[in-house]
């Protein structure tokens, strides 16, 4: 997607978001004790943001922003460019979803192991090395936090049953 189009979409999205939040300011509870209502500051921000978004949209429509010719390839190109970042985010999301079950020790070790394999390759030898590094790195950090700093990290259902 060209930068010009992306900017139009981004400006329109931001404008819509501003409208949604502005509408939400009317649902903020009014109190009898405060001199200044809790909705005053957010409204001041949102009005400024709305004006800026309109300016951004106008600039985008007039083609004021440079078109990014470097990448191309549409959405597939975008996914290809940000493949590594998207993989990391996806695995991190998975780690968070499974955290209540796997806990911090198993979950973070698996997270690191998966990130290593997706980014570094899936060969048998590599997987063994990745597994060892992940286990040592996360095991050490978990031990430092649990026993050294006395931080209660999520234990997870699996370890609790075990």
């Amino acid at each position, binding site marked *: 997607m060209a*930068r010009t189009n*992306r*900017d139009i979409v*981004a400006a329109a999205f931001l404008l819509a978001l501003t409208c949604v*939040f502005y509408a*939400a300011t009317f649902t*903020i*509870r009014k*109190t009898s*004790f*405060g*001199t*200044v*209502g*809790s*909705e*005053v*500051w*957010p409204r*001041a*921000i*949102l009005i*400024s*943001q709305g004006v*800026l*978004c309109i*300016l*951004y949209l106008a600039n985008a429509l007039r083609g004021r*922003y440079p078109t990014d010719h470097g990448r191309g390839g549409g959405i597939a190109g975008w996914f290809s460019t*940000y*493949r*590594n*970042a998207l993989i*990391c*985010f996806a695995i*991190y*999301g998975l780690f*968070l979803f499974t*955290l*209540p079950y796997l806990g*911090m020790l198993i979950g*973070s070790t698996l*997270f*690191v192991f998966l*990130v*290593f394999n997706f*980014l*570094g*390759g899936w060969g048998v030898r590599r997987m063994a090395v990745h597994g060892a*590094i992940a286990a040592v*790195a*996360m095991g050490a*950090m*978990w031990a430092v*936090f649990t026993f050294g*700093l006395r*931080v*209660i*990290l*999520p234990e997870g259902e699996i370890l609790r049953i075990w």
Partner: protein
Amino acid sequence: MIIENILAAADALFTVPTMALMVLGVAAGLIAGAIPGFTITMAIVLTLPFTFGMSPIQGLATMLGVFVGGLSGGLMAGILTGIPGTPSSVATTFDGFPMARKGQPGLALGIGVWASFFGGVISAVLLMTLAPQLARIGLEFGPWDFLSLVLFALTITASLSGDNLVKGLIAGTLGLLVATVGSDEINGVERFSFGFEPVEQGFAFLPVLVGLFAFSQLLSDIQDRQAAQQPLMPPGAEAVRIEHAQAIREVLKHWGHLIRSSLIGVFTGILPAAGGSISNILAYDQAKKASKTPELFGTGTPEGIIAPESANNATAGGALITMMALGIPGDIVTAIMLGALMIHDVIPSPTFISDEPRLAYGIFLAFFLANFIMVGMQAICLRAFVLVTQVRMYILTGVILAYCGIGIFALNNIVFDLWTLLIFGVLGLIMKTMGFPLAPMILGVVLGHIAELNLNRALSTSDDLTLFLTRPWSLFFLILGAFSIFFPHYQKLRGKVRWTLIYPSAMAICLAVPLFMMQGAVRPTIASGMIMFSLWILWRHQQRGWELVDEVRE
């Protein structure tokens, strides 16, 4: 009084455990700063949980060690690999890397280390002398003035941190909006949670900052699939020996560049803007303009290393001046430091230095001392850095991401903070790819609460909005804010368009107005001087027929 405070702070600071912790902090900062993608922000957040059990002075001294170490660590990667470890060492690579390639890596590193040291020491001295004075001025500020200061901080950050002012300002307002989510601090009313329970308390400050800045930075560093699988330095690379004696001679030989760049660094730090990432480029540019041999810049000249390295370390002192005296962070790293201080129940404000002199001077002294420790530790950490750089980038990324998660969880023991990290990491990456600068958003998140609190105080005291224009300091910051909006255009078009000839004089004359409104004799005298000087500059331009640079060359 100052001596008494310094002695009291020294008594608390010069203990074996505190010194040992500072050494560890500097070492951790040096290694973190040296690894591209591993920012000082991450290093401080990871250090924070370790400081919970320490006394405030120990905890703060450790974090200041990480801060100073991180600033200096960036030069190792920049000089030896050509890839700056941190944004504040970008300009160091322009001459540091060529000098290393010419066979003088030890000298290049030495010049970088000693320039960093002298820059840091100069700014530490200025921090100790200027911060209490600025805090005294800060005591004159009312809520109107603080709100105007926050607005100025946001406009200047937006105008300095990106090519596009509108995008910068939108990022700033988005940051302010994020700070409003959750329970309102003044009335306790819930806002923008949309019925989602975990958001009712709002987003925790540090996960938002780490997600926005550090997470997105780390992930954009591994975009290149081939590069992600390579180590930073080839296997077999060895640590070089830093040539200290020759480096000190080179740095002192160019003392003019050192002093000028350090002052540029301190001034950039005092401004609530983009900090070291700007000061190192600015100092490099000024050094090149002032040099007798500008053609040597970019080929490995010592001046090209001295200027950026002294400036970026001096920026830290400048940023600490504003943070300690006014409670306004000077850049992203000091924003994180502010959050870290708050976790230790230390809330910087104009009264902080006078109320807590032992702690305040302890911070000043720790910053001063950290620069000395940094010089001593650099040679040791260089070996560790060489080892770390032989690890493949994706391995470092995976481990750092997981460590950040654990570090963030340990701050509040809340799983939702990990979700916050993810959400703002995604948002940060999207914003970066769309060309939105992240610094204004981060500053918006940090300053949002301060701005709202002061708006409430101002409107509770009086509903007269003209007070924003009739109170001298408020007017001063609003004028600065208005002129800062045009600053990027001024920089781009300086000497090419006629209005740029008037811009500095017009700003000085406008700023003289609130100075005239202030009490006493000193400030109105300064204002008179500013007006006289501006009128003289304008008269000179008029005598030359408003000639532009291109016309002069012709």
